[in-house]
């Protein structure tokens, strides 16, 4: 028969775990809201850049920029995998690492020189566990990636791309679609391909005749690297937001499981306690009967 005291001990420890997971859930919720605000601020910036490009297009400018052109002979490629520094967030890290390893194999088969860069401790250890050498790891990005930190990385890529040391940059990250849906995606950020959906940004203000200082070409020259930097920054932000959501969901599940466990342990404990009392009563009654 089960020992009531042991059961009670187990129930207490499950209760403690529940407290922890519940707190982590609340923290993740708060962090998610903060990260979400930052992500929407970045969206405001991206929208304005897109609008700017749309206005630029109205001048009939030929869009050609070295960053937009795909290179025929890809010699050097870099794969950037964005994961989290911490675990306990469900399949978040595992999914990204799996997609990253798959993309790495595909990339290595087609491009001679590949370089792997990983952000987040989980990704770094996950990749080295799989026997893939990580050329550079970043661990400074927590739930609030700063633009100047991301910009430093982006500038390095831009310089390498301009110098011909880099022909292709792929980023594996978790894209934030909405609060219920996040998706692991592989995106090629260099060459940029296009400057967003210019066609659909055909609003009324697009017909305003703008004066360009110094010239549309010069502005385009500046817009393209800027939009690359912002895109990369958005990847980091999406990763941060998705990590918090994943943690919230995982911790919510853990809390609910702990609730169930507590319920069933309480039932077992009560049953065992009642069983013991019944036994003692039986003993007593048996003793009384024997005496009389």
């Amino acid at each position, binding site marked *: 028969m089960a020992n009531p005291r042991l059961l009670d001990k187990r129930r207490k420890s499950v209760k403690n775990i529940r407290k922890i997971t519940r707190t982590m859930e609340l923290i993740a919720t708060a962090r998610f809201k903060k990260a979400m605000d*930052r992500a929407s*601020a*970045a969206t*405001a*910036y991206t929208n*304005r*850049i897109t*609008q*700017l490009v749309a*206005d*630029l297009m109205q001048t009939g400018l030929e869009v050609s920029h070295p960053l937009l052109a795909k290179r025929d002979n890809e010699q050097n490629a870099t794969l950037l995998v964005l994961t989290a520094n911490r675990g306990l967030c469900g399949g978040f890290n595992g999914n990204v690492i799996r997609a990253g390893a798959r993309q790495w194999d595909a990339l290595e088969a087609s491009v001679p020189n590949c370089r792997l860069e990983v952000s987040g401790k989980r990704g770094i250890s996950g990749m080295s566990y799989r026997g893939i050498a990580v050329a550079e790891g970043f661990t400074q990005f927590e739930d609030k990636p*700063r*633009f*100047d930190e991301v*910009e430093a990385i982006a500038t390095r890529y831009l*310089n390498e791309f*301009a*110098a011909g040391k880099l022909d292709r940059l792929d980023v594996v990250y978790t894209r934030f679609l909405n609060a219920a849906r996040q998706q692991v995606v592989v995106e090629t950020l260099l060459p940029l391909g296009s400057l967003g959906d210019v066609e659909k940004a055909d609003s009324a*203000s697009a017909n*305003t*005749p*703008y*004066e*360009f*200082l*110094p010239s549309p070409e*010069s*502005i385009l020259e*500046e*817009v393209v690297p*800027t939009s690359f*930097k*912002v895109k990369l*920054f958005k990847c980091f932000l999406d990763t941060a937001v998705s990590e918090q959501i994943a943690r919230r969901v995982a911790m919510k599940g853990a809390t609910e499981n702990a609730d169930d466990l507590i319920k069933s342990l309480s039932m077992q404990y009560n049953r065992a306690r009642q069983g013991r009392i019944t036994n003692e009563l039986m003993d007593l009654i048996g003793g009384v009967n024997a005496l009389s």
Partner: protein
Amino acid sequence: MAEAIGTLSVSVVTPEETVVQTTVDSLVVPLFDGEIGILRGHAPMIGRLGFGEMRLTAQGVTTRYYVDGGFVQVADNVVSVLTGRAAPLDKLDAEAARTQLEGSLKQLATGDDAIALRDRLVSQARAQLSLVRKL
């Protein structure tokens, strides 16, 4: 007089946050080759920003920011300033700017791209230093 001129709305946006969202009487932003002043009724314009000081004047009070390149777009009395960084002048880090200036001046640059990059870093640091000195 300010009332007669009217106001225009300004938003200063960086990738991290919306720094300023307000209405002003006039503003001055640093373009790539000098400053430009913008009042109500300015013709639609898209300009490339340089590194330097942005001044917003509302009811005689001037607030000053450092902006770090980017773009300015003017249309229908709405001014959008898109920049990588916008900070109030007293938040500038003179020490970091000085290190950047010294470091980039020492750096050997070969090729057009490298020279352009170095010039950019130098002018960025110089703009910050001259603003700090003005405080």
